């Protein structure tokens, strides 16, 4: 058994700029390593990250010190285990089930997507990240949660404030003040729409929770909706931008995708290539061996699904975007009890509806210059802009 190696060199700034060369080296040389600057243990190989997420008794999601608690003004299901987590998750899950996606959200999303895409000016250059990817993600989520009254701008701002607060490991009071203000706005809206959902039950998450046979406490409904706001905009936004970048920088693949209508494959490859949520933390509940190393209890282990998704042991040439690679399940949606509740919604809305619609409307759209696209992020990652000429 070996001591855990320590990496003194890597900084959060490096990881935010481009983590992939760092992860490639870690997978090869130090697949279990303490990154000194974060004082967390990074686990970068596919077999380990999957195993960790599927063994919640050893690797708990419960982290009493997480800034998520002040940011969300609640201990949320993301940071719970076992029955408690299941009860809160299942309270909301029916709103995201394939059945309800078919009956409610697919048709609505198609209408919204047509509306948002038709507003884009043909022949001009726009930033699709700001003008499409973010707003459409906000709009469909507002409906799915039962918050149609919220504007796209509000939804996106609340989401960002929650995320900034949840990542506020330095306890900057300014960031918590901003997330507090967002919480106050969200709570006011929740109170306003609650009677409507009780009077006229529907398939939105809020209504499903309010009208359940055995409802969870209202405070936890609020927390659940906030988790969905914090986690349901960035990911489809970044996934869409990433997939578009992958297709537009690989025109031969794009042509083949159009020919085969392989939009779902394009979706899966995009989220494998750059997973919108790159990293998930777990806390060890006991001494445990990972690879060649023994880790003590109460250590924070970062499972790096971004790295697992490019692991040479699973994927040939995993650093490249290749829609037509040999299929293998990826970990972009995680695994285990916290497997992404929005996975099916994302596949259907982006893979089955948005991608074909967008390329049908603008078959010859092109990035003005791929080098202008800025990628950023350690925990969450994607392009920050996507300047495209619409044709």
């Amino acid at each position, binding site marked *: 058994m070996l001591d855990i190696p320590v990496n003194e060199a890597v900084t959060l700034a490096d990881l935010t700029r481009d983590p992939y060369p760092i992860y490639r080296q870690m997978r090869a040389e130090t697949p279990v390593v303490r990154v000194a600057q974060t004082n967390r243990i990074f686990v970068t190989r596919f077999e380990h990250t999957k195993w960790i997420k599927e063994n919640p008794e050893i690797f708990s999601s419960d982290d009493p010190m997480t800034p998520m608690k002040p940011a969300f003004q609640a201990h949320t299901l993301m940071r719970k285990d076992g029955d408690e987590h299941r009860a809160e998750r299942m309270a909301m899950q029916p709103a995201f089930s394939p059945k309800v996606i078919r009956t409610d959200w697919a048709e609505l999303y198609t209408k919204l997507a047509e509306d948002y895409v038709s507003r884009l000016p043909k022949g001009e250059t726009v930033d699709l990240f700001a003008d499409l990817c973010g707003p459409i993600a906000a709009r469909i989520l507002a409906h799915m949660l039962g918050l149609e009254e919220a504007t796209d701008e509000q939804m996106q701002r609340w989401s960002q404030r929650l995320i900034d607060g949840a990542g506020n490991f330095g306890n900057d009071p300014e960031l918590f003040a901003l997330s507090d203000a967002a919480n106050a706005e969200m709570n006011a809206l929740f109170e306003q729409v609650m009677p409507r959902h009780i009077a006229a039950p529907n398939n939105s998450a809020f209504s499903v929770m309010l009208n359940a046979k055995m409802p969870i406490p209202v405070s936890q409904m609020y927390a659940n909706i906030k988790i969905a706001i914090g986690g349901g905009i960035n990911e489809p936004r970044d996934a869409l931008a990433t997939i578009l970048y992958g297709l537009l920088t690989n025109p031969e693949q794009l042509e083949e995708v159009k020919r085969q209508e392989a939009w779902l494959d394009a979706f899966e490859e995009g989220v494998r290539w750059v997973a919108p949520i790159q990293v998930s933390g777990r806390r060890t509940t006991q001494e445990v061996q990972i690879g060649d190393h023994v880790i003590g209890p109460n250590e924070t282990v970062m499972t790096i699904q971004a790295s697992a998704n490019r692991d040479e042991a699973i994927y040939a040439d995993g650093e490249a975007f290749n829609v037509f690679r040999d299929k293998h399940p990826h970990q972009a949606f995680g*695994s285990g009890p916290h497997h992404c509740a929005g996975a099916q919604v994302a596949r259907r809305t982006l893979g089955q509806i948005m991608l074909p619609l967008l390329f049908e409307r603008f078959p010859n759209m092109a990035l003005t210059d791929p080098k202008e696209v800025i990628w950023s992020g350690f925990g969450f990652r994607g392009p920050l802009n996507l300047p495209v000429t619409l044709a």
Partner: protein
Amino acid sequence: MTKITFVQPDGRSQTVSARAGDSVMQTALAHSIDGIFAECGGAMMCATCHCYIEDARTGEASQGEEDLLDCAEDEVRPSSRLSCQIKVSEDLDGLVVHLPVTVD
């Protein structure tokens, strides 16, 4: 050795040897059976290991499993089960598992 037969919607079938202690889902993955995805890895959270089993030896679905089946992609029938919730034992020798068709 426990034999399990997986039958695809088009009638193709494949009989494999299952290891006692594994779940039916793990058996399917180990033999690359089409139609079982098991995205959550057996945590009873995704319903992507949905199958149909008419065999009293597998017992009844738990309440949690029933709740998840409501979220399955495919048609849910009285014989619907999540294959991650069925543990292989020698008692299950000869089990027949039908895979669902995707409705769209």
